[in-house]
């Protein structure tokens, strides 16, 4: 595939980015499959960022996360990951510009930054720098400074509501996941309260049921 074809195909996939997992996975897989064009494909991400609406930008930052995850999963620790680590601050600036759009995207960007930190794409120093940037821009946006970014259309807002809902749904499907079984008791110790009246009642009911079963037993 020549660079031109690659860019066209990739841009088309990026255009269809939404909250759905499949729309995120397809361009990520394409990017990894065509790693020989990585410089070109990476620049497409910037193109989308520069021209896209505030929705597109938030989907792009999630895509960056997806791409890193897929990359790590396949054992590829350089290429896109290196470029993303290098450019993270610039990425954040684009997704959280000063203006209403920026303020809206701030919480999502924070989530993605934490996710990238967990994957070790960025270190603590970089994370702090990025967070500070998000905070500054968000505050500036709230203070009313507008750098002339286009106002958000009604259609965009509705689409964003839909996508947030979809993202929440996906997150809930995996909220119970335990990354390492050895950690589970720690989470339990920190979240479970000591015995209450309610618990004792439940245990008593259980015990009654147990006695019933034993009474009925054949031998």
């Amino acid at each position, binding site marked *: 595939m020549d660079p031109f074809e690659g860019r066209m195909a990739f841009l088309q996939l990026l255009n269809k980015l939404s909250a759905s997992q499949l729309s995120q996975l397809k361009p990520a897989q394409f990017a990894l499959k065509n790693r020989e064009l990585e410089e070109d494909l990476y620049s497409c991400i910037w193109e989308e960022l520069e021209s896209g609406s505030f929705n597109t930008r938030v989907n792009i930052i999630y895509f960056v996360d997806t791409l890193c995850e897929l990359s790590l999963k396949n054992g590829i620790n350089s290429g896109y990951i290196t470029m993303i680590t290098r450019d993270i601050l610039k990425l954040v600036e684009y997704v959280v510009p000063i203006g209403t759009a920026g303020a809206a995207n701030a919480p999502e960007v924070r989530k993605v930054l934490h996710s990238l930190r967990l994957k070790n794409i960025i270190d603590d120093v970089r994370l702090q720098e990025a967070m500070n940037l998000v905070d500054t821009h968000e505050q500036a946006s709230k203070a009313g400074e507008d750098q002339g970014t286009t106002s958000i259309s009604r259609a965009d807002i509705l689409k964003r509501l839909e996508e947030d809902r979809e993202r929440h749904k996906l997150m809930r*499907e995996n909220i*119970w*996941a*335990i*990354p390492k*079984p050895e950690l*589970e*008791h*720690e989470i*339990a*110790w920190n979240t*479970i*309260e*000591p*015995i209450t009246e309610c*618990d*004792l009642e*439940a*245990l*008593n009911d*259980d*015990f009654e*049921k*147990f006695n*019933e*079963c*034993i009474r*009925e*037993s*054949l*031998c």
Partner: protein
Amino acid sequence: MSEEKHVLSIRLSRPFYSENEITRIMQSRDPKENGLKMQAFHWISEMSRSLKFPVRTSGLAMLLISRIQLFYSLAELPLIECATACLFVACKVEDTAKKLREVLLIHFQHKHPGLDADSHTQIIDEVKRKVLGLERMILELLCFDFRVRHPHTYVIKFAKSLNFTSSTAVVAWNICTDAYRTFAPLKYPVSVIAIAALSITCKLQKLSQPIIPRNFCAPTLLTEGAIADLLDLYMHFQPYTVLGQMYPTDLLLGLCVDFQRAQRNSSRPPKVTKVDVNIPSIADLYTQSNAQLSSSKQGCTRFLLDCDRNYFEREYKIRVTQDGLPENAKTR
């Protein structure tokens, strides 16, 4: 033409079985099955790790394997597919659902490491067929009763209420996880297992045994039964357990020996090792009932969760014998 027999089978959910009932069933089974059971447990553990399931899901899956073992001979079932089916049912019951597709993929990756799943869709379809069939069997064994409790939550609650530290609680937590590899969850309520776990932990950490309030529903006799089951597991299957990785063999064996000595010195009746074979085992009754259902042209199975025993007996007599239907299999 002989008259058509309508067979009605009523299945009542039974979350617990007595020690003797279980002994009665297991005494007629090949001891090799225990090795198979441990393999199934190991499989469930590994798959749970890959699918990131919490302990309640993998625990329930192991409980289902134990339940299957009571009613069917493990040697006659496809063991690994059974384990996967149990895990699949468990993840749905415990609200940690994963799509069947994903579970089958992990199953394939564990069974055939290194192979590409996409080029072996036929194998995966075959597994899917087996798993869905086994799922049905498992649900019927469970009587569709999804009210399951787990000792882990309670062991933390008890530990906190009895002023134990987090480092003690973690050992007790691990013992609760090991408990699923025994029949204890089918014989004792979760409060008993949680207290048994704490008791063993105190012995290991040389702490004094706590005084258990009565309303914790863990009478000493039952707790000792659960402790016996757990120590039995550590004695015979230490490498398969979580605790077994944390403590040396001689320490665990020492616990077993101490416990057995204490039991002998106390006035407890010795554990029954053989039950009268003239009593039909639950497994026999279940098999008979299934045979009757499949041989009759019209069969109906009703699954009941709870029931006032007296009401049930009365109504059963009225409806069944009055209608002149033949004595049918009432199984549990």
